């Protein structure tokens, strides 16, 4: 009995001792008046990690959160924690609510519930733990203690002891990515990790300063990183991912990217992810029948995997997450996530005699040089007769006339090669590879009605954007979708006829081509003295292929890099035959722009009763530096000048 009482008393004493400082911290932390735009604030955020020799890591998280508004109270009606039971064990050990009225309520592990997480297209058995906090009010706070062991993903069963499934995929290694930035105020954040002295640790603080401490013990070394008074991170519209530019810690025991590359190669080869089957071999032969060249063969296989395999993640059980499904499984399921589609393509390419490997990449943000796992996407590399590795992405190119999606240019990647590889970066794609050409030829009648034809053609990512009018929509709506592009700008317009080729799904036959014959009553103001109108081709029609037109141009200067969907070139020509000979009374006068980000040029000519307007723009990259902003911004402004301003023409008497 005494044995039981002593621990209970100790727990009580420690809780009581801690409760007072927590109360004091809450009272002095800050209020909604100080942080009017934040729903809650984090008073204290501590993570302590203890790494074992095997790589198995034990995490203890301790957080104190203060509610600042009713929106914060609504958000924290429950406290939830996501985990994957195949690779991590999580326990919400305790949660203490400190009500502003002085009352305290303690919820322990017995109050937690555990259930399958909601899902969408990836059903890998993810689960959540939850404790209900119930109704909180501004001024209330809660303190949560979470213990966790394991990893985000597991690979293969590497042992028989109970904890073996929690050992990370790269056995014996540890890594972590710790943000020292936040969307809400954080008074103090501490991250501590203890790592065996046998490990070679490398770490770096990016994009800011964080206090560091290190103590070397007999077996392990203790590292501590902390930062006080973190204010909410201020973003800019269209900026790169906040993690690219905000303070963060990367820490890893992996020696370099070569080691990671070799590990990725080996783990999938050992599992047999790329083993073909007679059925797959037969399919490869069938697909490649009539292939004219090496690149033609690679293209046929890439697009077959891209188009015929649905993006949907089913769990293979143990090893799900980093292991690529066996080709036989993916082929039978005809579905998989990026890694499974990449693996399927590797398998088919190898069956066709190519040297091919899987690669890891990070869509949407940068990979920094410390070799921590900063990956969220998987692709394929193939070695062609030029001796070089070429990237293929079967996940991002369904109905895209590319083998590697240029929406992923300037992106880091790491191929899994037998000899290993350093971190690589995908090149910039020439804007001409993604052209949009819009030309309109119209006749303006004396009653203001415009009639004529507009012709749009596009390539690469621009082709894909326009093609989504069809491939991203019910077939029955295709005609309507094309018509609506005109009606969005001119509700009174009428599509006399439209043409979009034979089958938009047959994207490999050539760049998309759209033609619309139209009649637009009351298009222009025509009087005995003036003709006033905005030329149709310059009106922003088919802006789905020119997303930069929606950029917020109010910022004169940028602090952070920014990004668009893809590099792109634009060519707009509008020819209008007027009801009478005229001269310019006023016209948009854009200046020429040329810079590191973009360039723009335009010309307008009026010869008798024929008005010709031409615009040419080139947006040179996907990811831009702040220095690229002035020319990018000016080029968009110039194009918008034609959208927003009419030509005023004086009729010659």
């Amino acid at each position, binding site marked *: 009995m005494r044995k039981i009482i002593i621990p209970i008393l100790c727990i009580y004493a420690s809780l009581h001792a801690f409760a007072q400082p927590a109360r004091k911290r809450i009272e002095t932390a800050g209020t909604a008046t100080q942080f009017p735009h934040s729903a809650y604030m984090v008073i204290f955020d501590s993570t302590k990690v203890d790494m074992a020799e095997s790589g198995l890591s034990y995490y203890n998280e301790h957080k104190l959160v203060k509610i600042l508004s009713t929106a914060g109270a609504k958000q924290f009606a429950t406290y939830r924690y996501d985990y994957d039971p195949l690779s991590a064990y999580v326990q919400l050990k305790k949660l203490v609510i400190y009500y502003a009225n002085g009352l305290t309520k303690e919820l322990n592990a017995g109050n937690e519930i555990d259930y399958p997480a*909601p899902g969408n297209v990836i059903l890998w058995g993810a689960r959540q733990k939850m404790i209900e906090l119930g109704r909180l009010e501004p001024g209330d706070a809660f303190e949560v203690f979470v213990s966790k062991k394991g990893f985000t993903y597991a690979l293969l069963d590497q042992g028989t002891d109970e904890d073996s499934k929690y050992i990370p995929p790269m056995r014996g290694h540890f890594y972590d990515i710790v943000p020292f930035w936040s969307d809400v105020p954080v008074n103090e954040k501490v991250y501590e990790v203890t790592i065996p002295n046998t490990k070679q640790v490398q770490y770096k603080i990016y994009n800011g300063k964080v206090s560091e401490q290190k103590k070397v013990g007999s077996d392990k070394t203790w590292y501590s990183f902390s930062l006080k008074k973190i204010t909410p991170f201020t973003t800019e519209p269209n900026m790169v991912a906040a993690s690219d530019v905000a303070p963060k810690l990367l820490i890893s025991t992996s020696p370099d990217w070569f080691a990671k590359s070799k590990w990725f190669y080996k783990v999938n080869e050992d599992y047999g992810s790329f083993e073909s089957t007679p059925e797959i071999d037969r399919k490869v032969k069938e697909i490649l029948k009539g292939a004219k060249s090496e690149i033609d063969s690679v293209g046929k296989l890439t697009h077959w995997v891209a188009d015929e395999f649905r993006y949907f993640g089913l769990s293979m059980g143990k090893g799900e997450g980093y292991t690529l499904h066996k080709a036989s499984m993916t082929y039978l*399921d005809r579905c998989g996530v990026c890694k499974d589609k990449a693996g399927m393509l590797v398998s088919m390419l190898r069956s066709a005699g190519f040297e091919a490997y899987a690669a890891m990449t990070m869509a949407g943000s940068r990979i920094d040089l410390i070799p921590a796992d900063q990956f969220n996407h998987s692709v394929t590399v193939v070695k062609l007769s030029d001796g070089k590795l070429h990237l293929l992405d079967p996940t991002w190119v369904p109905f895209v006339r590319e083998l590697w999606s240029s929406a992923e240019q300037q992106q880091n990647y790491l191929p899994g090669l037998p000899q290993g590889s350093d971190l690589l970066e995908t090149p910039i794609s020439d804007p001409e590879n993604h052209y949009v050409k819009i030309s309109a030829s119209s006749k303006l009648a004396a009653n203001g009605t415009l009639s004529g034809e507009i012709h749009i053609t596009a390539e690469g990512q621009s082709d894909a954007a326009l093609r989504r009018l069809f491939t991203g929509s019910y077939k029955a709506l295709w005609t309507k979708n094309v018509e609506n592009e005109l009606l969005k700008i001119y509700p009174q317009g009428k599509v006399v006829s439209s043409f979009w080729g034979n089958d938009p799904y047959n994207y490999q036959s050539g760049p998309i081509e759209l033609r619309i014959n139209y009649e637009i009553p009351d298009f222009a103001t025509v009087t005995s003295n003036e003709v006033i109108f905005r030329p149709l081709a310059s009106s922003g029609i088919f802006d789905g292929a020119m997303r930069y037109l929606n950029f917020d141009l109010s910022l004169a200067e940028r602090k952070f890099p920014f990004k668009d969907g893809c590099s792109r070139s634009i060519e707009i020509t509008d020819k209008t035959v007027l009801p009478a000979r005229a001269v310019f009374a006023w016209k948009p006068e854009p200046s020429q722009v040329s810079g590191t980000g973009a360039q723009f040029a335009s010309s307008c000519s009026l010869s008798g009763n024929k008005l010709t307007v031409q615009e040419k723009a080139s947006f040179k990259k996907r990811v831009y530096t702040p220095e690229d902003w002035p020319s990018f911004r000016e080029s968009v402004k110039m194009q918008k000048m034609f959208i927003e301003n009419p030509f005023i023409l004086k009729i010659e008497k």
Partner: protein
Amino acid sequence: MKLQIIYCLLILLFLTSCTPKIEKNYPEADAVYLKRVKTYHLNTDGSITTSEEKQQKLLTYRAFQSLFGDTHIFFNPDFQTVDVKSAFTIMADGKKVEVPENGINDILPGWCAGSEAYNRLREKVITHTALERNAVINCAWSVNTAKGIVPCLAGTETISSDCPVENYAVVVEVPEGVTLNYQLINSAVQPETKQKDGFKIYTWQFTDIPQHLAENNETVNLPTVPVLLFSTQNDEASILKWLSTDGVSDEAVASIKKETQSLTPAQKVLKAQEIIANEVNTLFIPAPLTAFKSRAPREVWLSNSGTPFEKCNLLASVIRSQGANAEVCIKYPAYCNDEQLPFHLLAEPLVKVNLGRDTLYLSATHQNRNASEFLGAQTIIRSLSSNFKQINSLRPSDLVKITGEMKLSRNEKINGKISSEYSNSSVPWYSLLANQANVPDKQINSKAKIEELSEHKLVVSSVIDASLSTERGGYLFVTIPESHEVSASIIPSVLSSERINPVALPCPINESYHFQLQLPENSSLVNSLSEEISNSIGTVKISFSQKEDKITIDKHLTINNQSINPKEYTQFKQLMDKWRTPQFKELVICTK
């Protein structure tokens, strides 16, 4: 002779069966259901088994990549069990591929996320594998609901789909002696009935149902596709009682009381609505999955989350504690106006509050601006606790009338006075009761003063001092002020040339503008015009004219109908196209 006839018939039958089935073409469809069968079976012990079977052929890439690749079955394990009877794909070459074991997963439905109370609900996702163009998905499953959980066997089946259906059957099986009440709207199909093993079986068989793609401004209250309603209940009162929940949360009452102490009775009610609608999480869980039962208000308040029914019960109980008369009501489509039909399956809850002169109809999930917009047309409002029942038929026109006298300066500024009149549901009556600063059309009425206010009429005057014009080469382009209420907010921004379903408007429209604009010296209107269209749907009149140094702008739109059927759509579009023509929203003035 008889034998010969029989032989001939047998030969004919044989030949018919040998003739290869001619496959129909669906050039406009992404997929086609070859077969859909939905069966409702009321067991003799009172439990209910609902079964579904489907065969769906995929025709396009999009069909299997993003439209039809999964089957989702929602259930409550506390009283329901699911049995997946078969799930396989017949690939284009005829190969049969069963859904693998890992292709059937139970997850938490998204609308239960963040709720401890409803954490046990599940969504069974059947991921169909081996999909490709011309593959056929085959799937059959059943859900068994334990006895005594729901008040009766009931169902509403909308006979339509976003792809064509060749054969669609709805089967309802009830023990002999149990009366099935039913109604099928928008179809003349009659049920086949038969008796078997002590059950009466009703079968509605539909064939060649065209695909129905949703268009904007459709309304559930006036469906255009067949809807089958059926129920075994014959006691409306018991259903209403089933939906009711008593109780009060002292904690909610005390907390809201602190926020409402110095307010008027109406403001107290609306503040309670604001708190419960905005601060308590809403769980949009379909009522059958909670067996139409609500937790007590105290539990809802303390968990800070609730279903729409639960939040209504909480709101009504708080308002009652404020001394007002509040009752929970349900709202459902008027086509279900039969006490023996399954109105409870279509019901949305609301709170009716009597405040002496005013009756407020409040949502507990959002702050509704007024009653008529929230209650809608073609709906029935029924109290759960009293005999109150109201049918909302057509609504009167929403009216916006804006007049003004303004002066244009050469510096592109416009100043003057504007008077705006709003009526019916364009009056944000509840918002104004809560705070008179909540006037509509902030851009027009930036410095607004309320001149007249009632539930159905609002008159606002304001001083305008704004840059509404742009100078280009000696020409001033003036944007004509326009209300954000009525046509701009309730009519779709893009009207395609063709329409399959009727356009449903919440109310008829009467929107007009009359402005006088004094010009700078030596200026003239360039785009004087006079446009008028009048047809059976309504009228559009637009005129810009100049007399001496004043321009008169008159714009008037009336839409007389609340529902515009596809035959009338061209006339409706003609009016709206004219009204929305960009050239008619701007004045061009020459200042040279």
